[in-house]
């Protein structure tokens, strides 16, 4: 009996270990090799941080990283604003003309292949610059608009699920006490849903930072984002600098995810408390 339990425990544990190895093995090996002395990625030549040093002097990568961060921050911020408006409209007004098509349009980028999204945006921008003269060329602006397009969809999902639990009698109470609707929104609703907005912003930021396909379609000369640089340099042979860069990005992203998770956890705990 106890032997059987022990055996099944060992089986379960090895399954778990296999799962973790499958998920995190590649990332961990990439991180370890970023500290490799050798120029050859597959040959271990002892510990070193020299690739980090070289990375810091690679102007092309630094420029691309700066551009990507800028694009991610701007597109995420706009996406949060528009997504909050969309989510408010969808949650608060259960019946209005065009609600169905709004819902459809907000879900489409979630399920549409990125290639198609990128291509359609490219065609749109070309046609627009021809007919309207704006955007004049393709570059930072077009990437920001493209990233906003799909980020809004994701952020709306996050904000909407928070608003679905929101007690709108709080806004009514604020108005009853003399606050105009806009003031009621900014003093009551916004602080209460802010954890969801932060989580949504982080999600949009990460999605934008991560995007290669859409950006490749809508970028122009002189606006190369970080994933594009990484992808093109890998094709010429993997440089350990890329490993170093990947390690930094993985660390930053996991940190952001951890913070978002913590914020969500606290928000949920407080919401449950206030429901009691």
């Amino acid at each position: 009996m106890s032997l059987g339990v022990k055996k099944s425990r060992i089986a379960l544990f090895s399954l778990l270990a296999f799962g973790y190895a499958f998920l995190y093995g590649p990332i961990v090996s990439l991180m370890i090799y970023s500290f490799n002395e050798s120029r050859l990625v597959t040959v271990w030549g002892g510990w070193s941080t020299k690739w980090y040093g070289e990375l810091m002097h690679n102007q092309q990568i630094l420029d691309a990283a700066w551009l990507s961060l800028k694009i991610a921050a701007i597109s995420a911020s706009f996406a949060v604003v528009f997504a909050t408006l969309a989510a408010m409209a969808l949650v608060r007004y259960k019946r209005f003309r065009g609600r169905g098509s709004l819902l459809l349009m907000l879900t489409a980028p979630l399920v549409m292949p990125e290639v198609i999204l990128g291509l359609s945006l490219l065609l749109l921008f070309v046609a627009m610059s021809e007919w309207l003269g704006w955007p004049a060329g393709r570059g930072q602006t077009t990437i920001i608009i493209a990233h906003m397009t799909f980020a809004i969809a994701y952020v709306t999902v996050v904000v909407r699920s928070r608003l679905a639990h929101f007690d709108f009698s709080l806004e009514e109470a604020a108005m009853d006490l003399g606050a105009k609707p806009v003031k009621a929104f900014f003093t009551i609703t916004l602080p209460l849903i802010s954890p969801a907005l932060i989580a949504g912003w982080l999600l949009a930021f990460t999605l934008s930072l991560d995007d290669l396909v859409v950006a490749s379609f809508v970028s122009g000369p002189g606006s190369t984002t970080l994933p594009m640089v990484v992808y093109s340099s890998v094709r010429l042979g993997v440089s350990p600098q890329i490993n170093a860069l990947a390690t930094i990005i993985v660390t930053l992203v996991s940190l952001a995810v951890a913070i978002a998770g913590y914020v969500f956890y606290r928000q949920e705990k407080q919401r449950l408390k206030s429901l009691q």
Partner: protein
Amino acid sequence: MTLQETPIVQLQQVTKTYGDLYAVDDVSLDIYPGEFFSLLGASGCGKTTLLRMLAGFETPTSGKIFLGGEDVTDLPPYERPLNMMFQSYALFPHLNVADNIAFGLRQERMPKAERDQRVQEMLQLVQIEKLGKRKPHQLSGGQRQRVALARALAKHPKLLLLDEPLGALDKKLREQTQFELVNLQERLGITFIVVTHDQEEAMTMSSRIALMREGRVVQVDAPRRLYEYPNSRYCADFIGSINLFDAEVVKQEDNLVTLKSPDCDQLLQVYHSQPLLEGMTATVAVRPEKVQITENCQPQRSNQLRGVIKEIAYLGDVSVYHVDLPSGKRIQFTQSNVQALAQQPLDWEEEVCLHWQADACNLLLE
């Protein structure tokens, strides 16, 4: 009650429809300063919709609402000179108790010193002086109710709307809070309009009650009159329990009406001032506590029934007896348990004779 004053709230033929549904149907009401007015009814009778229209969260489909003589039908909630206490309390979870109470004062840009003083006053008023720094989720249900009340009173409104103010409290606390609420209302002299589905609560607190049914007001009266002189079967049945006899008018002499009911061997007699036609049908209503038990039945006495006790419910203060009449109809009567043990306790299957005075019952015409 002095009804000569001008009403603080006037509803003129207010109707609210949602599609085909009449949530509030042609309601006209006058509510006077200093009243403790209750909107009573089963759930879905439109009482909350009516309150929300007073607060400005809903706009009437037709009709007008006047506050202190001024037409406020189209005024938004933040411009109405009244405050509301929400059923869920709607306390702002990210603000502490003091900031919750100060919220309304901030909107009218009251100076800080005066505001702080007012918040202290309010905390004292509802006896939670020590809780100012707490967040709503750190409070008990009863304390939250007090904060909600303090917040609604902080701006010194002339009119306070309360949506099921005691609905979330347990029975013991509710009974205690009922009297506190009445004392507070009397002390402050504010007009209260309360929505409740609990008839006992409405009876305890109100100066007047409007009983609502399916969007309409059935009867508006003081609690005592509502209980003693209901104007309809619905009202009689909703407030307390009652025995109803379908009957036919035999004759009317002065105000004394004599009727005949298939449920009773003897004639029924009841006072009614309006002239009635012979042969018309009406309902005789008599409350269980007005029915007395008599030694034995007399041959020619009106308002007299013979029956067999089928159920006895001992409730502590009173006992309720269910009696089957020969016609098969079941009626109720109650006796107060004045002594610990009655000399002659009534028993199951015992045959009894019941009787009531002609002025103890009334006549309902539908």
